[in-house]
């Protein structure tokens, strides 16, 4: 028994008075009477002066208390997790594979939150590259539109109940021998495939159907027909010296574009070599790939197959093989020239096509075969698994559903109510299915029609594996425990099949039996290694000899001619934008605000037509038209797109979402339903008709509204031939007229040099390596907490991106020509504003140039922007009073002003307006307040982290050990970050390169960013 101590004898004796007082907080009588009675007031010891003192104190204390800023409590770890040190990031290797993109990635987590995605440099496929979508995917984790748990008939439910009901229904279907269909996107995960097969084993009437929103089934079919291998090949653009692409946007989204971008640029960097690949693009819309091409020919989509036939015949003639029947095409001359170049590069040539027509792809295969590409630039053995869709199966499924032959459908990673052509058929069919289950993470267009939604984890919360390429394995691991009551889709399938194993164990078991057997380590060691690196590459299976295609080419050719592609007044092609892609991540505000690399338009899709076509048809930029194709019609604004083939239009898919969430709903229009279905294959084109509507002109939210360089030496460029003669070609130094004649601008200065005692950081941007994809824009946004401002604010030219990709078109007019034509300066200048009909395109990433003689620094009245001893132009947000003088005086216009508060402001209802979305913020970078200027800091937080790390380890900084976010995210390594003071650094070498120049060099602001001239492999007879 517990010991008891008494407060006094009173307690011991339980004195009546004591007992009474015991429960009274104020045991002794309070002198209330003394204070409040009138007698007390008269005799009070509190005199007037004391009263005033108390009053003053009271008022002051109350005021102070009310001034206090609201307190947000942070809860420290009660028990510190072993692997988490507050303030230190943890990195996990993982994998992004959503059925359309694949990237091996590193996930940066801070205090248990994933905040940044970077490429895994050890990947044999993506080699450290990531695209905008993969970078932005971290924000999709914190999407408020995600489901908090399973839904049954649209209402929140419990997993147990849902499972019970589903299993009961599945069993019923099974007993009735009803058809079960599992409709999935391309699955690269071997363990997921196994889980599905376990499910189909339990329910024998179940069948998996693979459906890709953007289909490549024509190519898969063609390879099956030509070589007996129903796969997509792996391409080696780095082995090709001549690349001819028919509409394939292999830098901007075609199959595995991150991989191809890196390969492509290997032969175009001109580091220590003068060899450069030659790239010819035949395409309809001006794509990212087309704008990087050395030669670009605008063709109509209906001409593509015929152009390929012509190319085959030209090459067959050169090879002395039999030709096939063909038909004349307007671009015959260019085809002939391309054929000659390809033939000259035999064995190092590559022809690709975007066509989803099996016959056309078979002709492409035949061309590549004649060119000997299968041994060098195309690899069918280590085939690519990224796309496996089968259009015919999908079409058949729709037919089956409409006939009422499908009893249950399970949807995984697909959203056919949005993406399906003939979407009404799909919806009607779906309504006839008895049991509809979706694994979607939100109640999207399809999931909202389903009976059950069993939300899958976000990929950052889940275990998974992937085999994007045969023998190349990739692992995904959770980087945060699931935010909501979600469950891995695989676990759902397994549990419905009666297997209660969790997916990680299941995956391990699967690897034990299959993948692990290809190596000699113990499984635990192998597993740890693989998880740690995120990768495992199995030893190459011996290559099988590629057999020559055994198809009847004549029959293929006549099939192409007799079965022409849809033709009409206006031929429209549908394409994926680099940002929104197929629309799966449309509710990601970073991607919505990501400027299209070509049009620079954000938050919209549109009908792009050539300016000439628009002029001939009475259309102007922003005219709202009704587009009719394949029995569907949508309203779209017209965008004048130089380079678009005459008589054609292009529209991006992935827009017009209705059930994606607040950022995506109502943005643009959905054109998926217009996709043509020919021979049970989905063709991303249609014959269309447009009619003008009476709607007011649409105003685009574009980040760049002026498109030509106006004859200024902003992007300096030359041709390969000139470059070989003189590496400094096109890079004439800027001279300033002085009393002593023309002098280089650096010599004409009044400024004192800054001292850089230790480092001078800088970046070099190779304009030849930059493909303009814009991955850096999203990388920077994620790293530096750059706010999203929305469509209206972008219309007001107030986007906040710290790095932008300037895109310029060439113009037909230039000063020389104007002089020849005796035109006045005024007319010349006005005509120079107009891009050519098929312009050459240049891209130039521009961020703060970190000038050593910075114009912004001198004009700030409060010295809020100033120079660091390491060459950085730094911004002290706390000191900024917001005069915007610095922005006015910045010749590069890279400074961004906080016009409003972009956090906790309902007018800017994006990720920084809710606690969930804010979890993505980088704690190392301050969130700027209203009224301050901000700009690129050259990721000073990374520099600081790297310096501290080196200091702790008592060593010098190794070149390249840390990089800015933009340099890190660049799939082509066009941006090189480093220290000019380190003579061995890459940047110190590049500074001496004869291609290096400062943007606007004549201003002599001495930037720490250098650019390397663009070199085009154009022929002398080409513009």
């Amino acid at each position: 028994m517990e010991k008891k101590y008494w407060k006094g004898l009173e307690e011991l004796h339980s004195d009546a008075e004591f007992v009474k007082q015991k429960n009274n907080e104020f045991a002794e009588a309070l002198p209330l009477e003394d204070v409040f009675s009138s007698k007390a007031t008269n005799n009070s010891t509190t005199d007037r002066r004391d009263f005033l003192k108390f009053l003053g104190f009271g008022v002051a204390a109350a005021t102070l208390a009310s001034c206090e800023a609201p307190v947000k409590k942070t809860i420290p770890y009660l028990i510190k997790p072993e692997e988490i040190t507050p303030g230190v990031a943890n990195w996990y290797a993982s994998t992004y594979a959503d059925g359309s993109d694949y990237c091996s990635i590193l996930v940066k987590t801070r205090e248990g939150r994933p905040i940044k995605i970077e490429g895994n440099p050890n990947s044999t496929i993506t080699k450290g590259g990531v695209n905008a979508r993969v970078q932005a995917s971290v924000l999709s984790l914190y999407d408020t539109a995600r489901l908090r748990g399973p839904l049954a008939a649209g209402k929140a439910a419990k997993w147990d109940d849902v499972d019970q009901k589903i299993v009961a229904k599945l069993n019923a279907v099974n007993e009735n021998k009803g058809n079960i269909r599992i409709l999935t996107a391309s699955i690269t995960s071997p363990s997921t495939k196994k889980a599905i097969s376990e499910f189909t084993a339990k329910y024998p009437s179940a069948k998996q159907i693979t459906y890709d929103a953007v289909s490549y089934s024509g190519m898969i079919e063609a390879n099956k027909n030509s070589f007996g291998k129903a796969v997509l090949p792996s391409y080696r653009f780095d082995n090709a010296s001549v690349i001819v692409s028919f509409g394939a946007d292999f830098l901007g989204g075609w199959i595995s574009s991150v991989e191809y971008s890196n390969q492509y640029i290997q032969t175009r960097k001109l580091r220590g070599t003068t060899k450069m690949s030659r790239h010819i693009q035949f395409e309809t819309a001006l794509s990212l790939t087309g704008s990087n091409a050395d030669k670009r020919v605008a063709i109509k989509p209906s001409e593509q197959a015929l152009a390929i036939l012509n190319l085959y015949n030209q090459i067959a003639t050169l090879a002395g093989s039999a030709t096939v029947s063909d038909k004349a095409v307007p671009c015959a001359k260019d085809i002939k020239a391309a054929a000659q170049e390809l033939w000259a590069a035999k064995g190092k040539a590559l022809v690709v096509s975007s066509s989803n027509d099996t016959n056309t792809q078979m002709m492409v295969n035949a061309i590549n075969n004649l060119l000997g590409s299968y041994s060098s630039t195309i690899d069918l053995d280590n085939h690519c698994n990224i796309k496996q869709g089968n259009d015919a199966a999908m079409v058949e499924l729709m037919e089956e559903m409409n006939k009422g032959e499908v009893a249950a459908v399970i949807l995984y990673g697909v959203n056919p109510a949005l993406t399906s052509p003939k979407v009404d058929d799909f919806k009607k069919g779906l309504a006839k299915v008895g049991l509809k289950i979706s694994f979607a993470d939100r109640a999207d267009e399809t999931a909202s029609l389903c009976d059950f939604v069993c939300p899958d984890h976000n990929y950052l919360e889940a275990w998974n594996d992937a085999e994007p390429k045969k023998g190349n394995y990739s692992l995904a691991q959770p980087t945060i425990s699931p935010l909501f009551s979600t469950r891995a889709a695989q676990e759902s399938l397994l549990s419905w099949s009666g297997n209660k194993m969790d997916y990680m164990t299941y995956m391990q078991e699967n690897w034990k039996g299959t993948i692990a057997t290809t190596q000699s380590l113990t499984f635990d060691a192998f597993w740890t290694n693989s998880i740690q690196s995120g990768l495992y590459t199995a030893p190459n299976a011996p290559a099988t000899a590629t057999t020559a295609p055994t198809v009847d080419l004549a029959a293929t050719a006549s099939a192409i001619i007799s079965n022409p592609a849809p033709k009409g007044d206006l031929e429209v092609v549908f394409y994926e934008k680099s940002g929104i892609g197929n629309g799966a991540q449309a509710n990601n505000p970073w991607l919505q605000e990501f400027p299209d690399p070509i049009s620079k338009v954000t938050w919209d899709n549109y009908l792009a037509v050539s300016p000439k076509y628009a002029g001939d048809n009475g259309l102007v930029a922003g005219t709202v038209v009704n587009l009719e194709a394949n029995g569907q019609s949508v309203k779209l604004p017209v965008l004048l797109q130089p380079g678009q083939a005459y008589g054609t239009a292009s529209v991006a898919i992935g827009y017009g979402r209705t059930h994606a969430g607040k950022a995506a709903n109502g943005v643009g229009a959905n054109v998926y339903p217009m996709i043509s279905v020919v021979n049970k294959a989905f063709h991303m084109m249609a014959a269309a008709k447009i009619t003008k509507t009476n709607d007011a002109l649409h105003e685009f939210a574009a980040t760049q509204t002026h498109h030509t360089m106006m004859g200024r030496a902003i992007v300096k460029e030359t041709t390969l031939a000139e470059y070989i003669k003189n590496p400094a070609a096109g890079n004439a130094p800027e001279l300033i007229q002085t009393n002593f004649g023309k002098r280089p601008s650096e010599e004409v200065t009044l400024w004192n040099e800054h001292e850089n005692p230790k480092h001078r950081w800088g970046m070099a941007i190779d304009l030849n390596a930059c493909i303009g994809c814009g991955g850096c824009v999203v990388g920077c946004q994620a790293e530096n907490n750059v706010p999203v401002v929305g469509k209206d604010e972008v219309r007001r030219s107030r986007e906040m991106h710290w790095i932008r990709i300037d895109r310029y078109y060439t113009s037909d007019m230039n000063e020389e020509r104007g002089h020849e034509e005796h035109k006045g300066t005024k007319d010349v200048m006005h005509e120079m504003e107009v891009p050519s009909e098929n312009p050459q395109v240049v891209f130039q990433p521009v961020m703060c140039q970190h000038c050593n003689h910075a114009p912004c620094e001198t004009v700030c009245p409060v010295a809020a922007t100033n120079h660091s001893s390491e060459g950085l132009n730094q911004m002290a947000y706390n000191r900024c009073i917001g005069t915007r003088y610095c922005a006015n005086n910045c010749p590069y216009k890279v400074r961004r002003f906080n016009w409003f508060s972009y956090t906790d402001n309902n007018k800017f209802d994006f990720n920084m307006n809710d606690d969930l979305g804010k979890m993505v913020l980088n704690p190392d970078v301050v969130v700027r307040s209203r009224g301050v200027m901000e700009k690129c800091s050259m990721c000073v937080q990374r520099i600081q982290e790297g310096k501290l790390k080196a200091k702790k380890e008592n060593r010098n900084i190794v070149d390249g050990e840390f990089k800015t976010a933009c340099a890190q995210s660049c799939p082509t390594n066009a941006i090189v970050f480093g220290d000019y003071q380190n003579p061995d650094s890459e940047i110190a070498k590049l500074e001496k390169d004869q291609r290096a120049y400062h943007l606007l060099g004549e201003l002599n602001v001495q930037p720490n960013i250098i650019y390397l001239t663009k070199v085009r492999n154009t022929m002398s007879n080409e513009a």
Partner: protein
Amino acid sequence: MQMHETHNTIAVPPDGARLRTPLIKGVKTYTQLSDDICRPVEGKANKWWWAAFTLSVIAMTWGFLCIAYEVGTGIGVWGLNKTVGWAWDITNFVWWIGIGHAGTLISAILLLFRQRWRMSINRSAEAMTIFAVVCAGLFPVFHMGRVWLAYWVLPLGNQFGSLWVNFNSPLLWDVFAISTYFSVSLVFWYMGLLPDLATIRDRAGLAGRKTMQYVYSWLSFGWKGSARDWSRFEEVSLVLAGLSTPLVLSVHTIVSMDFATSLVPGWHTTIFPPYFVAGAIFSGFAMVLTLMLVARKVLNLEDYITVEHVEAMNKIITLTGSIVGVAYLTEFFIAWYSGVEYEAYAFLNRATGPYWWAYWSMMTCNVITPQLFWFRKIRRSLVLTFIISIFVNIGMWFERFVIIVTSLHRDYLPSSWVMYSPTFVEVGMFIGTMGLFFTLFLLFCRVFPVIALAELKSVIKQIDERPENERPH
């Protein structure tokens, strides 16, 4: 009524018979002068005053509401963007500062040059200066993103560490230039008011208006009118005139350096200081004329502010207008002669780009209209002068708009070229400062003598050329 009788009974010699045109019309005694000039202060306001005052207060209130909205929401409620960081705000600032140039010029420089005709107009011109500077000052303050930290532009001791202002920044020079100009102008103006305030005090005493006498005795700082008072008054006037004179030149010089020291094509121009000063005087005189022509009518001061005054000021307008015109042409010549493509384009774009209408409005209003004053008839016509003065005010506003917006909207990298258009908030703020200006001016008309009474009394003596027996007693 008495005044009119005087008019009728005393024969005024014809103009040609005098050595110089009298500075004020009619024959006035000291009493009449005091009566005429103190009347608006002592009497009741008429309908027109109340109408104007109400309108001004409404405009001012609207302006302050716009400011409150802007401060509460963010600069984003204006039409600015990533490329055009200043537009109406700084345009209005420079415009108002320019208008604030005439007062000090008239009172200081013309005092030093012994131009006695200034006496009829210097008081109100100075008042105008002060009110214009108040209006001007609002813009650089409220154009700040974080206006609550505006005091950081002052070199105050602080606890932020070693933070100090940046003496390289022309904006900081502005802070000093404008605050100095404002304080010197205010002191100069108020000092000139002392004897007149004492007059009102004394008259109020005589009329038995105790409160008024009390208030004005405070306002007049106990002016006694002793010889010592007058001697000190004269001395301080001269000293302040000496101090103000360089300020007239320096303020707009420094304002012009906001632009001239930058590297924006169209701003980076060495001609800016003299060109801005000339422009400021130009616009200042125009505004003085606009106001004066109304005030003389409304306050019945036709005798004191005469056609001669108007003509003298019109001559200055023609001179400064021509300087401005030459400056415009010089800029164009230099843009071409420099061989700098950015500079050349900036000017080509001004004249032929998307804002051509602003440029040609400026050219028409500032260069062509003042040249009409070469005709004596026009420069002596009050109606035409009034119209032209308005044109000049508009033209000078466009000048600043052209310089600021057309230079910024298309500078070095075409990728950042954008258009700018104002929102109702910016327009509202401008209207608000107009309201503030006129509110202050109207109050001034009712509280202080609008003409420097004491000084003017020194000129009637001089110009009364009548024979002794004909002079009024």
